[in-house]
């Protein structure tokens, strides 16, 4: 995937782990890696790999504050907005 170019939707949504991460970040907004890992039940390496993918896809952003690194859901990105809508719809349908 080249930077600045969105990957195909099926690629974004084809991984359970990525969807879990998107759900967590869409709800919370911003978090650090080990907390994302804890909430999704994925290990740190897998979490980091998915985060890198999602950053390149423009759906989340990485921010550094000194030594601390956090990941933020890109609320202003139209693609991220569309995914958030999908998540909200899907979650509201759950019993």
């Amino acid at each position, binding site marked *: 995937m080249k930077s600045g170019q969105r990957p195909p939707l099926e690629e974004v949504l084809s991984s359970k782990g990525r969807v879990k991460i998107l759900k967590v970040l869409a709800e919370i907004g*911003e*978090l*650090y890696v080990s907390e994302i890992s804890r909430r999704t039940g994925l290990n740190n390496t897998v979490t980091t790999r998915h985060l890198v993918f999602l950053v390149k896809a423009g759906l989340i952003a990485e*921010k550094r*504050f*000194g*030594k*601390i690194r*956090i990941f933020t859901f890109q609320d202003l990105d139209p693609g991220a907005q569309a995914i958030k809508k999908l998540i909200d719809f899907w979650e509201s349908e759950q019993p």
Partner: protein
Amino acid sequence: MGNLPSVFKDESRLSIEYVPSQLPHREKELRLLEIFFASTLENPGGLSQRVQITGGIGTGKTALSKLFGSRVENTARGRGINLRYVHVNCRVNKSLFTILKRVLESLTVPFPQRGYSDEELLHSLLRYFDEKNCFLIIALDELESLIREEGSEPLYALTRVQEERLGLLQRFSLICIVRRPEVFKSLDESTVSTLLHNVIHLDGYSLPQLEDILNYRVQEAFRENAVRSETLRLIADVAGARGDARYAIEILWRAGKYADSEESKAVLPEHARKAAASIYPAVRRESLGYLGLHERLLLLAIARRLKQTEAAYITMGDVEEAYRIVCEEHGKEPRGHTKIWEFLQELEDIGVIVTKISDTGFRGKTTLMGLPEIPAAILEREVTRLLEAGE
């Protein structure tokens, strides 16, 4: 069990955590705080403000600071300024790390709370505030505990961290709340010099002032006509000698409880008398509630030894011996002499024990420990109850 009738309409209005929307007889001080922090609202980030609030127990320091905090947050919001107030009790959060942790939790800052030094965390927090354009007032309540535990370091870090950030906005302001300003004497000069400019001292409340405060709380917490005016006057009289509103409010609450337990429709002077007899200022909920396990064990040891010996004061040696026995009874490893000494200072600070230097009858000079006005048996009972409940 059906709902029994109660004299209360909302007893949470008498809890220690509750901050009323008005503080009778502290209007001037509230205004003064607002004046000190006016520049924070007019020119956010231009200046890091530091204010000291001093005064005895129950003079309204905490309530004043918290009320100011909620008001300043509201005013800032109205002006589109992201200013937050975080109140930290240093008796509970005794290190810079736990203070920062409390700030992270209060403001839901998405930072890991482990793996970074205090300094790294502090710098990262400032950068995060830069990004969010957020300003923070941290109120450090019962600051004595932090100073005793960590000396000048935390205050130095909090005041100086911003000065190293040349050309950037000042993000933190501090309110330092202490009982006695002398505590600052133990700090190094460069730290003290930044803290001593703006001081608000709260004197104990007078009797009529206490009556006004009680009247206000009665309106908030009790059903109409549930508290007789003579009951209020009696409570004000009891608490008046100390000028301590918290003590007065606790008597009022307990009097209400006695009234309820007797299914009385009104809180009578007799209920207030019973309530006053059941609370000694030194064993109030907030005095003992914050104590750690070993401080409680030590207090139990002192109470027991004083009860057994029927002496007015006991020596440090006696205390240590009794403490070791109590530790053994509770299956805990006793702490060393230096730590015990620190615990004793803390217990004296909150007024639950008194110490004095021996004069005649002792070889050399030794520190003697006693209890202020509370019978040892009652203190023993209260501490045992706390230890058993594990509160």
